[in-house]
């Protein structure tokens, strides 16, 4: 019994024959995928391969046309977005998706208040709540110098950091990062990915990310999948995928 449970829980995310089309245009034809608990996995593929759509289906942004999504042994296919977030999947968006007219501090506090289920409180002044946790997370993500600025005026790199902070505030078990380092300088990229790695090591956070930067993928991912024309065509350790001919032709070949 205990073993059976282990087997179910070992895969934090299990996706079976996922399909999605927009009108006549089929984006994902048949994607099966699984992610083990505590793993850092990357998905690559040329533009339009369906990476973002894949994330959008997992997090409930788009309606799944066919197939199933299991998270921690529970089926979450087509759950409403907020329920999937509550269940433990956070995501950071490719194009930063933040609260432009709130300060950095207020952005992060909002996400933390949501996680702490305090957002129905209509009596306590918000500035008395969640201050410690908010500052901790701001410090962790390297946003301390920007905490008082309106999020709308932050640099692209800082917006991406804030994006990550909002995702982390939900205390997720699975973190989906859609091109987390796009728009960042090479130092910022390094800092961000080191943070991701640290979270993975220290609290066992499972991470699934898409990325164009090959050095980031080979430096941080345990597992790499190649998405091409709506299907996973190659999967394995980054080294294995590098040697895979089909994958090279479809994607890696372009870069070499």
């Amino acid at each position, binding site marked *: 019994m205990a073993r059976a449970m282990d087997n179910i829980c070992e895969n934090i995310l299990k996706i079976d024959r996922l399909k999605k089309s927009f009108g006549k245009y089929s984006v994902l034809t048949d994607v099966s995928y699984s992610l083990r608990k505590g793993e850092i996995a990357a998905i690559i593929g040329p533009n339009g391969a369906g990476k973002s759509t894949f994330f959008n289906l997992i997090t409930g942004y788009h309606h799944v046309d066919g197939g199933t999504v299991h998270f921690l042994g529970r089926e979450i296919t087509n759950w409403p977005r907020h329920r999937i977030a509550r269940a433990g999947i956070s995501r950071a968006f490719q194009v930063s*998706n933040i609260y432009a*007219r709130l300060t950095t501090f207020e952005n992060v506090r909002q996400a933390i208040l949501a996680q702490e289920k305090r*957002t129905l409180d209509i009596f306590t002044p918000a*500035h008395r709540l969640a201050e410690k946790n908010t500052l901790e997370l701001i410090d962790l993500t390297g946003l301390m110098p920007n905490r008082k600025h309106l999020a709308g005026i932050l640099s692209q790199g800082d917006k991406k950091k804030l994006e990550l902070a909002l995702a982390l*505030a939900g205390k997720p078990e699975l973190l989906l990062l859609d091109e987390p380092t796009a728009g960042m300088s090479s130092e910022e990229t390094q800092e961000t990915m080191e943070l991701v790695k640290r979270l993975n090591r220290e609290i066992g956070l499972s991470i699934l990310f898409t990325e164009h930067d090959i050095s980031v993928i080979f430096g941080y991912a345990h597992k790499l999948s190649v998405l091409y024309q709506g299907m996973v065509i190659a999967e394995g350790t980054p080294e294995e995928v590098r040697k895979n001919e089909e994958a090279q032709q479809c994607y890696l070949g372009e870069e070499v």
Partner: protein
Amino acid sequence: MKNKYLFPVALFLLAIALPYIVPEFWVHVLTEILIMGLFAASFNMVFGYMGQLTFGHAAYYGVGAYTTGLLMVKANVPLLLCLPLSMLSAGLCAAVLGYFCVKLRGIYFAILTMAFGQLVYYIIFQWYSFTGGDNGLQGIVPPAFLGKAANPYYFFTLIVVAIGMIALWIISESPFGYTMRAIRDNAERTEFIGINVQRYMHLNFIIAAMFAGLAGALWGPFNRSVAPDLCNWQHSGMPVFMTVMGGPFNFLGPLIGSAIYTMLMAFVTSFTEYWPMVSGIIIILVVLLLPGGLLGLLEDKFPFLRRKDDSEKGAEE
């Protein structure tokens, strides 16, 4: 910290002093300013804080006014009890109608709120046996302890409106209030941090309607009557005008807007019947020249008026 309470406290003291200085006609105008100010502030919970334009807010104001009117005329219920009951009936009405409205956003939200507002208007307009139809309800007399003069009812209104405004202020500064700002800025992201956006919008819509109902409840005894026009779409436009004039990004903006609008109307109508034309010109000027309303302009010119952000205090430690 203390600085941000200076302006509202000064306003309140001014509101206490004014009736002893100005003639009785202007005390009536002041009473109207307060009632419409609370109405506009409740509207701004949806407009300024949640980022949706409701064009049917008068329905809830009217439901509040009729609840108090009917209870007082037909059942002799004391006014003090009518006030919470009016909030309740307006809130219930918003719970039903708002359920559908919050499924939409932007112009569609505005149109559906307006359509529901007109629905309420026509029901009240047609239901002669219950609401008096287009005759309205007459003989809504304030309780004896408020007498017949203008001042006592003004002070009663001042207290109720002050309590209402403080309650709205507390809500706007609460985690719920910040969740409204979050939904206004980025509803999509708010879903992904785990918030059921529709449900929160619905709740805020109900809260806003309850305070509109409270404002409406104060109107009947002030005017000694209520009429279906209180629910009509023209009346829904008034908090929109007032809020845009005063400044939707300031908590007190709608109240200031109500003061400007109501005083101008009282002043202009004393010598010409073309008030709608005058108000139209003013609106055009405000929208073109002062996109942040009057308070927005003052804050730009005098930065010390700007509300210091609460988060700064937290971040400095």
